[in-house]
């Protein structure tokens, strides 16, 4: 899902950067208010964990690359979509500047897709489903699945606007790949949240509690 440099014309990249900067400013406000000495290690370890998750890439012929996203995981654990934007921005900076995974001129578009769309989709899907079903694994699974699928479709639309890939084929290729990858993302997110809520319930901010029978030892 990482768009590399040159795949989007510079003026479109600039527009995505401007939109992303608005959300980055809001995420920064979240960090100033919420990121205290206790929460900082959690933010950093989540960023490192998501970086590790995203490092397993597959090429998608009519799009960019296919991989896990992690936006839902960050938003659910830290209890805010802006946390996901903050963390995904960190991840994308490291990936772009150190590894060339995702471009510099298109980082705004990548932040919008994975951080903004992924974070908001994951967080509000989880909140909505949790309110309806009161079932943590189901809510987390669908939140993570959608937070993987929707950003990939947004990426296909951006590539089509840029003229690098056709819209229909791009949507189909990116959609199918990420619908499948979304299943893995769903299971990984459930596993991570399940174990964290069982072992360290104090770290989770969304009111998610360990399922009955899970011990904290």
């Amino acid at each position, binding site marked *: 899902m990482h768009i*590399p*440099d*040159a*795949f989007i*014309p*510079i003026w479109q*990249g600039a527009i995505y950067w401007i939109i992303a900067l608005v959300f980055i400013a809001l995420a*920064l406000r979240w*960090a*100033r208010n919420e*990121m205290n*000495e206790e929460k*900082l*290690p*959690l*933010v*950093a*370890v989540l*960023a*490192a*964990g998501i*970086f*590790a998750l995203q*490092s397993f*890439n597959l*090429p*998608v*012929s*009519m*799009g*960019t*690359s296919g991989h896990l996203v992690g936006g839902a995981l960050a938003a659910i654990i830290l209890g805010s979509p802006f946390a996901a934007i*903050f963390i995904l*921005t*960190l*991840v994308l*900076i*490291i990936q*772009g*500047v*150190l*590894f*060339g*995974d995702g*471009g*510099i*001129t298109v980082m705004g578009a990548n932040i919008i897709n994975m951080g903004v769309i992924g974070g908001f989709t994951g967080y509000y899907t989880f909140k909505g489903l949790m309110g309806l079903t009161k079932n943590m694994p189901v809510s987390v699974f669908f939140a993570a699945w959608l937070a993987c699928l929707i950003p990939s479709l947004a990426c296909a639309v951006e590539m089509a606007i840029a*003229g*690098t890939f*056709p819209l229909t084929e791009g949507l189909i290729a990116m959609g199918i790949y990420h619908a499948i990858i979304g299943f893995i993302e769903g*299971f*990984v997110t*459930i*596993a*991570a949240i*399940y*174990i*964290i809520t069982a*072992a*360290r319930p104090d770290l989770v901010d969304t009111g998610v509690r360990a399922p009955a029978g899970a011990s904290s030892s």
Partner: protein
Amino acid sequence: MIEELFEIERDAQKDSVVHRLDARVKIAIAFAAIIALVAVPYSTMVYTIGAVFFCFFAFLWCCTRLSPVTYLKRLISIVPLWGVIIFFQIFLKNKYYTDYHTVLSLPLGISIYAESIEFAFILLVKFMVCISFIILLSSTTRMHDMLEGAARMGLPAEFALALGMMIRYLFVFGYMFRKINETLKTKCFDAFDRHLPYRYRLRQLGYMIGTMFIRSYEQGERVYTSMLCRGYGKDSYLFVQRKPLKGTEWAVLCFSLAFITVIPLAVWLTSFRLL
């Protein structure tokens, strides 16, 4: 990618003229080159500008005293993934050309067009040169220096601090991943072994991911507490010392930025093309 992180940091610890340059100079040069090349319209002009920029990169790489094999290794780890995606361009029509000439017709109505091949090459040239500058930047700048440089260039303190912590955790994750992987190997566990039940494999992988997260977090928390005891805190990056650039660094920066700006303009004005 985590394994590559250790290699990149090893290269960045070496010593050369380029390694000794202030991180801000290298960040500015790399970003300027990428922006300038991406700003060139999708036309054959990119070949000339890309070639000149690549020569500039090659000169800087020679000054790093790093082996060309290091560069090639890193390029090979990045390019195949994107190479496949760029390769698919040869089958597609796009809005940058009006007329298309078929070079080869394949079954199922698939065709390869001359203009699409040209577009794929343009993308490849732009992509390769951009990636080369990223490789140069990351192979010659230690992560800590890059972070300090970015903080001095205006990166918000919250980002600088969290990035610094994240980089530490990446190494902790790397070590943790190695340890857990070795343990699973000694138990002969293979996540792709079809003889094992799905439920068992999923549970083991779930435990692995969760344990990696919890252990990294707890180890990192201990490290962070020790750092707090030594005076490091969440406001540390608010007070990064000011460090003016030296005369030679200004000279390198000004010359490079002028070169990066003038070359595309000159090529565009003269409409000089290699092909």
